[in-house]
Each structure stands twice: as structure tokens, then as C-alpha cells.
């Protein structure tokens, strides 16, 4: 079976786009092949800074032949219908059609269309140029002479050549014949830009990959990553250090080189007085180099690891020296920033916030800080935090935004605040809260546990949520520019992980005056649902609990949902749910029929059947027991009480006819059904639970 080899050779593709581009290429080509009846055995795609490559193996040499029978008009139908039929089927005259007998409706024409499959290589020659022209780069560009005319090819950077071969392993493959934007597909490519720039010819994937390797190009990004990681670890280890692994950086760096060469450089030990995170941010962000630890101290060592793209003629001495120079200059800047920052007390930075607008409609940063401070002080007693420390932490929490280091490296915000706070002798909890009040930032981020940090973190998030709710700037669809979803999830995790009782509606009211607290609460319900869904829990139970009156205590909601989930997994739970739903359904029908509700206690004197009396008793018992348990926030016991209701409900539906002929008895029974619904509402609104 023949294989396809495709290579799109261009100028340097941004590292961050390579993986997706390789994936898109494989998917687009194979989807189109399959759509054309060309089913394949396997496909794999690759990217380097200068090329996208794809191999598809085990393709058929031809498309399968297609046979199609098309029903036509009746024999003797008007000419217009006959002509339409001939045109649609491509037949020259009715002589080419067959006649099918149909004694009932009358005989009709049938066209037998046989479409011979085309050679796969011809189909591929049509597919690829279309894919190149419609390739989904995040940003594409035009270039050169052809860009003078409209409709010029757009690619991520100028495209230089295309390799496209198709053929059997045993034979010389054919070049897939097509042109795109003045480039004719062929079988010639080039190696490494500096070490092997000469053109060479390739036949199929196996020799392509091998010849590229000889020409100092490692085609497979995973292999480049493996090489970089192994070499970096070894180089660090050989000198008594330990590589600080960094997957994001590894991904990026592997997209910047075709031939990774790992080298180590050093910097002046004096720079180690700068916080390690700042050194790492400097070296990582600006220079795309790794840092290493001293295993004895667990702290950064004055070394860095760089990944070059060439085997230099001097063994890399000039490259290391050059990188050391740049890193020295960068660290000098960082050290200067850090030392400058230390000269100003954090609180002395506060006045500047009066001139910085947080949001056009929400006032200045200074106003926001004052709001956070006030709210954090309100929350502090609820989470067991010292009020004065909490106020101090809230006041200082944002001040590091005005420091030089954070201006340069926004990702160390909070952390620098902590360092500067400790340096000026702030309390440990206060300093820790400055770092932690941004947390948790995402699902894998740490949740603060110090009460002061919890109070400020909650205040920060609730302020931003109520603020944007008050000006009606809520997230819509994929648009959430102020990360409000993340803020709400942060509140949920802070409360759940630290088992905090926080009445949300009252807290919202304290945070901002005019906003729709109920609406914001339902936003929290949605976030909670998303979170539970991600944990594999039943998210419909959140609705069932939120549907009850006055549910604004997230911790209680979570606990209730957990207990309810467990209960519904038992037989008692399932049957009670079924019984309750049945009661609700009957009630809904009858309420509609009578145009009234059946509220109020049933009249005991109107009970006829034993099952009725037993159910009424069970309801009273359950209500009391479940109510007591809920009051004690013992949801497991509340569910146990619920379980006792189940046999009575089952027996009632088994033996008793609700729609009795006696109107009074009927009404009384409907009231009893309504009581089942009411009783279950002690724990949740069962009607919101999905089956």
C-alpha cells in the first residue's frame, strides 16, 4: 500500500503555534482523504521551527469505484421531467437508462451510474492546495511579489517549498503534482539553516527523517524535548546541581531549535541575593533558559542552562559567553529594581493608587483597596482571623503592583509583596496574606489556609464580583475579561477547603450597595455545578438544593449536595425520588384540571385506607426528624429520616386510588401528596433532580 509524505518548509514558525499546526495538518489531510474514500492505516505529523511534516501510510492506490442507482421519472412522464433526469444523472438519452417494473404505481426509469475511482495521487493533488490555502493559523501573513495582488496565499511566515511524494515502499514514489502560490511540489528539502543548508532529495518518510537527522534536524518535537531534558539533567548533575524542570519552557524551547545543543553558563553569586523567583522569571522569560538548584540547600545556584541551535565551532564558548553577558545585564536590572523597591515602604506607595483607575465605572484602585479592607474586616471574625492584621494585609495587598520588579515581571505579583512586607518587619500572617490573597488562581493552585489570608482573599474576590455585578458587566459566553468565573470558583474553594460558614447574600450586601445578589448567587450555583461536574459528581443536585429558600451558605450547600448524592445511590433514595416525582406529576395534572393548588394539611377524619393514615404519620415523623437533623446540619441523618418515608409512599401508591369518586376524599388525598413534596423539601427540591 502506498504512503504519502508531505512537508511544508517555511521561515521560522512561532514556537507556540507548532504543535497545534502539526495536529491541524494531520487532521485536515486525513479527514479529507477519508471523505474521498481513501482510508489509511496510520498518520503522524511533526513540526520544527521551519517545517510542518506529515506521513500517511497504508493508503489505497485508487479510490473505490462507486455504483449508484438513481430512480427517475415514470415511463411516459413529461419531457421536462425526463430532461431533468438526464441532466442530473449525466445520461445522454433514455436508452442508457433501464426500466423498472412497478405494477402498482407504473413503470419508471432507473439510471445506473458507475463512477470509476480515481488514482489516489490525483485526488491528493487536489486536496493539499486547498488545505494549504485554508490552513487555520492563529495569525497569517502575505509576503513578496505575489502579495501585490489580492488573493495571495497567507501562511504563518513565508512558505518556501513543498515536498509531496506518494508511492509504494518498493518503488520510487511519484511527486504529487500541484502548485500553490508559485511553489511547485517536489521532493527537495533543506537541512539545518546553518549546519546543513544544502538542498537534498527525499523519497519517502523513512529516508526523509533519516536524511534530515544527517542534516542536523531532529524532526520529532518529542524527541527534541527528550534530548533537551536528558542533556540538561545530565549537565546539571555532572556539576553537582539539579535542573529545575519547567514543562512550559521545555515546550517553547523545543520549538526554537531544530538541533538542540544544551550548554551551561553561570552568573555572579552576588545576584543570589535577589529572590529566587525573580531570578528564575528573569532567566526564563527574557532568555528562555532553565535554572538549577543546589541540592544541598534546595536553593537556586548561580548557573543556568541554555539550549542553542548549533554545534558551534568553538564548542559553544562564544554562545555561553554571549548568554552570560545578557543574563548579567538582566540580573543587574532585576537587582537594581529589587533594591530600589526595598527603599520605599509599601504603605508609602498607597497615595499613588488614588490616580490609578481600576475601572471607569468602579473608581480608582485606592477606592477598591478601601473596599477590600472594609469587607475583609467584616469577614475576619467569621473565619477566625485577627481583625487588625486582616486590615493591615488588605491595605498592603496590592501595593507591590507599583514596585519595579512587579512592573517588569507581573507573574511575581503578591510574592514580591510578601518579600517586601517581611523586609519591613510586617507580621508573618500579614506578609503571607499579601502573597496568598490572589489564590487560588486555577484548579491546581493552592488554597490559602491562614485565616488572615482567607479573609483578604475572600474580600478581594467578592469585591470584584459584586462590583462588576453592580455595573452589570457579567461574563457572557467565552467572554470573561475580568476573570469573574475564576473569582467565584476561588470563593467556593476557599469556603469548602477551609470549612467556612459564610452567608453569601449578607456578605454581598456588605460589599456593594446596588447589585442583584440573587443573580450573583445563581452565578455561584452555576460555578458550583461546573466544579461538581468536573469532579464527576451530579450537578443537578446543586439546582435541587439551591431551589430551597435561603440557601446562600456554600459550605452547607456542598454538604447537603454530598449527602443527597449518597442517599440517591441507595434503593430507598431511588424509590423515594420515584415516589415523590409520581406524587408531583399527579398533583401537576390535577392542579391543572381543577385550576387550584392543594396546599394545607390533610384532614385526618377523611382518611379511609390504612395506607393513607400510615403515610400521613410517616410524613409527620419524617418532617420532624429530618427538620431536627437539618437544624443540626446533620444531613446524613436527615437523609436517613427521609428513607423512612419510602415504604409508606410505596404502599400508598400500591393500594390507594388518589382520584377517589368522593370529591372530598380526592382533595384530601391530593393534599397528602402535596405533603410528600413538602416533606422532601426539608432536604432538597426533588423535582429539580434528573432521573
Amino acid at each position: 500500500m502506498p504512503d504519502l509524505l508531505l512537508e511544508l518548509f517555511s521561515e521560522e514558525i512561532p514556537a507556540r503555534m507548532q504543535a497545534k499546526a502539526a495536529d491541524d495538518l494531520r487532521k485536515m489531510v486525513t479527514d479529507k482523504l477519508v471523505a474521498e474514500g481513501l482510508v489509511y492505516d496510520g498518520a503522524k505529523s511533526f513540526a520544527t521551527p521551519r517545517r510542518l511534516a506529515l506521513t500517511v501510510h497504508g493508503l489505497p492506490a485508487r479510490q473505490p469505484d462507486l455504483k449508484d442507482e438513481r430512480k427517475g421519472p415514470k415511463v411516459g412522464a413529461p419531457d421536462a421531467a425526463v430532461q431533468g433526469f438526464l441532466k442530473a444523472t449525466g445520461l445522454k438519452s433514455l436508452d442508457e437508462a433501464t426500466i423498472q417494473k412497478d405494477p402498482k404505481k407504473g413503470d419508471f426509469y432507473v439510471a445506473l451510474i458507475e463512477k470509476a475511482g480515481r488514482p489516489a495521487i490525483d485526488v491528493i493533488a487536489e486536496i493539499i492546495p486547498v488545505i494549504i490555502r485554508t490552513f487555520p493559523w492563529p495569525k497569517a501573513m502575505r509576503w513578496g511579489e505575489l502579495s501585490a495582488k489580492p488573493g495571495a496565499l497567507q501562511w504563518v511566515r513565508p512558505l518556501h517549498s513543498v515536498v509531496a511524494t506518494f508511492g509504494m515502499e518498493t518503488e520510487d514514489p511519484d511527486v504529487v503534482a500541484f502548485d500553490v502560490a508559485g511553489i511547485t511540489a517536489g521532493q527537495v528539502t533543506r537541512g539545518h539553516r546553518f549546519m546543513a543548508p544544502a538542498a537534498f532529495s527525499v523519497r519517502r518518510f523513512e529516508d526523509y527523517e533519516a536524511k534530515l537527522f544527517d542534516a542536523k534536524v531532529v524532526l520529532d518535537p518529542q524527541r527534541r524535548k527528550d534530548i533537551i531534558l536528558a542533556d540538561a539533567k545530565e549537565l546539571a548533575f555532572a556539576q553537582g546541581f539539579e535542573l529545575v524542570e519547567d514543562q512550559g519552557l521545555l515546550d517553547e524551547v523545543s520549538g526554537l531549535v531544530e538541533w538542540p545543543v544544551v550548554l551551561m553558563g553561570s552568573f555572579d553569586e552576588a545576584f543570589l541575593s535577589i529572590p529566587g523567583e525573580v531570578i528564575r522569571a528573569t532567566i526564563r522569560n527574557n532568555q528562555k533558559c532553565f535554572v538549577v538548584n543546589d541540592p544541598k540547600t534546595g536553593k537556586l545556584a548561580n548557573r543556568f542552562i541554555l539550549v542553542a541551535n548549533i554545534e558551534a565551532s568553538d564548542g559553544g564558548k562564544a554562545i555561553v559567553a554571549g548568554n552570560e553577558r545578557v543574563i548579567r545585564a538582566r540580573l543587574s536590572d532585576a537587582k537594581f529594581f529589587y533594591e530600589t523597591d526595598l527603599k520605599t515602604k509599601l504603605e508609602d506607595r498607597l497615595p499613588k493608587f488614588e490616580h490609578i483607575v481600576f475601572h471607569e465605572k468602579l473608581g480608582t484602585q485606592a477606592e477598591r483597596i478601601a473596599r477590600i479592607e472594609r469587607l475583609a474586616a467584616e469577614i475576619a471574625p467569621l473565619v477566625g482571623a485577627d481583625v487588625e492584621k486582616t486590615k493591615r494585609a488588605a491595605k498592603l495587598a496590592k501595593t507591590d503592583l507599583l514596585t519595579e520588579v512587579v512592573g517588569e515581571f507581573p507573574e511575581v505579583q503578591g510574592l514580591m509583596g510578601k518579600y517586601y512586607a517581611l523586609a519591613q518587619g510586617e507580621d508573618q500572617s500579614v506578609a503571607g496574606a499579601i502573597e496568598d490573597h490572589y489564590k487560588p488562581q486555577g484548579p491546581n493552585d493552592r488554597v490559602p489556609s491562614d485565616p488572615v489570608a482567607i479573609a483578604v482573599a475572600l474580600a478581594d474576590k467578592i469585591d470584584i464580583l459584586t462590583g462588576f455585578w453592580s455595573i452589570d458587566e457579567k461574563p457572557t459566553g467565552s467572554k470573561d475579561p475580568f476573570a469573574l468565573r475564576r473569582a467565584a470558583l476561588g470563593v467556593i474553594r476557599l469556603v469548602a477547603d477551609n470549612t467556612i460558614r459564610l452567608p453569601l447574600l449578607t456578605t454581598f450586601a456588605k460589599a456593594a450597595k446596588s447589585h442583584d445578589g440573587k443573580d450573583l448567587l445563581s452565578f455561584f450555583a452555576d460555578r458550583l455545578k461546573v466544579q461538581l461536574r468536573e469532579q464527576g459528581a451530579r450537578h443537578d443536585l446543586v439546582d435541587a438544593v439551591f431551589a430551597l429558600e435561603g440557601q446562600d451558605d456554600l459550605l452547607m450547600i456542598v454538604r447537603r449536595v454530598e449527602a443527597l448524592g449518597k442517599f440517591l445511590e441507595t434503593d430507598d433514595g431511588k424509590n423515594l425520588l420515584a415516589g415523590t416525582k409520581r406524587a408531583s406529576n399527579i398533583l401537576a395534572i390535577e392542579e391543572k384540571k381543577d385550576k387550584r393548588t392543594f396546599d394545607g394539611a390533610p384532614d385526618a377524619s377523611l382518611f379511609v385506607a390504612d395506607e393513607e393514615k400510615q403515610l400521613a404519620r410517616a410524613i409527620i415523623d419524617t418532617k420532624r426528624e429530618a427538620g431536627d437533623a437539618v437544624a443540626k446540619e446533620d444531613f446524613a441523618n436527615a437523609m436517613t429520616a427521609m428513607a423512612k418515608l419510602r415504604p409508606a409512599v410505596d404502599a400508598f401508591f400500591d393500594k390507594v386510588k388518589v382520584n377517589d369518586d368522593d370529591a372530598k376524599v380526592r382533595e384530601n388525598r391530593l393534599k397528602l401528596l402535596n405533603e410528600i413534596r413538602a416533606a422532601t423539601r426539608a432536604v432538597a427540591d426533588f423535582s429539580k433532580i434528573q432521573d
Partner: protein
Amino acid sequence: MDSMPSHMRPERSFQGLILTLQRYWADYGCVILQPYDMEVGAGTFHPATTLRALGPKCWNAAYVQPSRRPKDGRYGENPNRLQHYYQFQVILKPSPPDIQDLYLKSLAAIGIDSELHDIRFVEDDWESPTLGAWGLGWECWCDGMEVSQFTYFQQVAGVECAPVAGELTYGLERLAMYVQGVENVYDLNFNGRDGDQKVTYGDVFLQAEQEYSRHNFEHADTAMLFEQFKMAEGACRKYLEAGWDGDKKERHLMALPAYDQCIKASHVFNLLDARGVISVTERQSYILRVRELAKACGDAWVHTEAGGV
């Protein structure tokens, strides 16, 4: 390069580096222009780039452009930052297919050997909000240091580039520091001489950096500057309006003088920004006002002879 006298060699002399680049691009066929005689923030502002990038005509040019970034002043105390520095600018329209190789050879000409150094093209999309311009390209790295910007212009002054021009911008001080092996910009050997004949970058520019930093941050007359901004904006619009030849607006006769006023407005804005008298919200609206001027100038330019009419 061997025949070159030592005081002209790029690794010894700042001016030697500039002359070598000029020579290299002259040999390629570029017109070698002199700096534009106005204050600009970057070589891109020179009409030889901004305006000539528009329209269908071929255009290959290279020039040094003194660039002013009032905010980057450091009173002469920072070894890497300057409020006035030199860019070497090359513009090739349409971008030739071998433009990357041409660039690498220009590095070789100033002594950067690609067998010894790690030269990389790292993604950097360029955008100038004030010029209404964007393009895709890279930062060019040499051993981890950014030495040039490489951009394929896609749009300039709000006009689609057809054909696309390739723009190369060399940061001359940084390159010179690298090839001379100097840590502080003020220590650069300017004229390539030794002993008492040696003139350093500091000899030439340190005083200016100190004086202009004082001016830019502390003393620049903001009342005058606000007025100048308004005047330049008004003049630009006036010249644009007056430049149309007839009512059909098919031909413009004063795109260049109008564009000078746009450059002026842009620099005045940068000074006001450095003085810290423009608030965050106002800042955006000033940028928009300059962009509107740039766009109107671009529109005028494409109705001139060199714009292709």
C-alpha cells in the same frame, strides 16, 4: 574586510559598524538615505519607511535614524538605556525571497559568524498603535541577545501593503556593544582610534543624555507641548485638506508636509507622556488622534506619484 583599516572595523569602531552596514546594503542596491530631519520615536517613522511602504512601487532603502524615546532616559546612569539612540533601518519592497539570508550576511559583514554564534528568529509580532500599522516577524537573537527586529509589514497607516515590504531594524548601540565586547554603552569606541585619539560614545552623548533626561522628565514645557500637539494636529489636517487636487480626491499634492506634522504630534505626545501629565484614559485618546492623522496621511500618499498614481 581584511583590507579595511583597523579604525574602520566594526568590532573596534561604532562608526565603522554603521559604515559597514551602509556599504553592505548599498552593494545590494539600496538607496542610502540620511536620517530624517525631525524627532522620531523609531526608524519606522521616517517617510522613507512609513509612506514608501505603501503603494505598488519597488523601494529599497537603508538609513540610520536617531530615535528618541523620552521615557527611556536614565540621566546617563543606566549602561543599556538611552532616550536617544541610533537605529539602522532597511526597507525592501517587495520583500525579496532571500531576505533572511540577506540579513544573515549583513551580520557576517559586521563580524557575527553564524558558525560560532547562535542566531535565532524568535516570534515577535509588531504593532504600532500610533501608526495604525502591524506586521509579523521576529526578534533576531544572537547568543540570547536581541540584535534586530525583522518585520513583514502587512498594514501601514491603515492601508494594506500591496506588495508587502520587509523591514529590518538593527539596534546599533546594542550590536556595537556586542561586537566590541563592551558592558556599558558609554564605553563604546566611537571612532575606532586608540589612546588620546579615541572618542567614546560617552564623550559624544553622555552630557546629552543627562540634559535631555532632565528636560524630558522635569522641565519640558507642558503648556507649550499641549499647544504644539494641537497645532501640529490642526496643521496636518489643514495640509491634507488643501492638498487634494480637485474635488474628486484622485490626486494629492501635499502628503509629505502633512505627514511631517503627524510625526511632530507623535513626538510631542511622547514628551507629554514622559512628563507624566497624560492620564491612562487620555493616553488612549491621544494615541487614537495620532493614528487618525497617520491614516489620513497614508490615504493621501497612495494618491501621489510615489504612492503609485
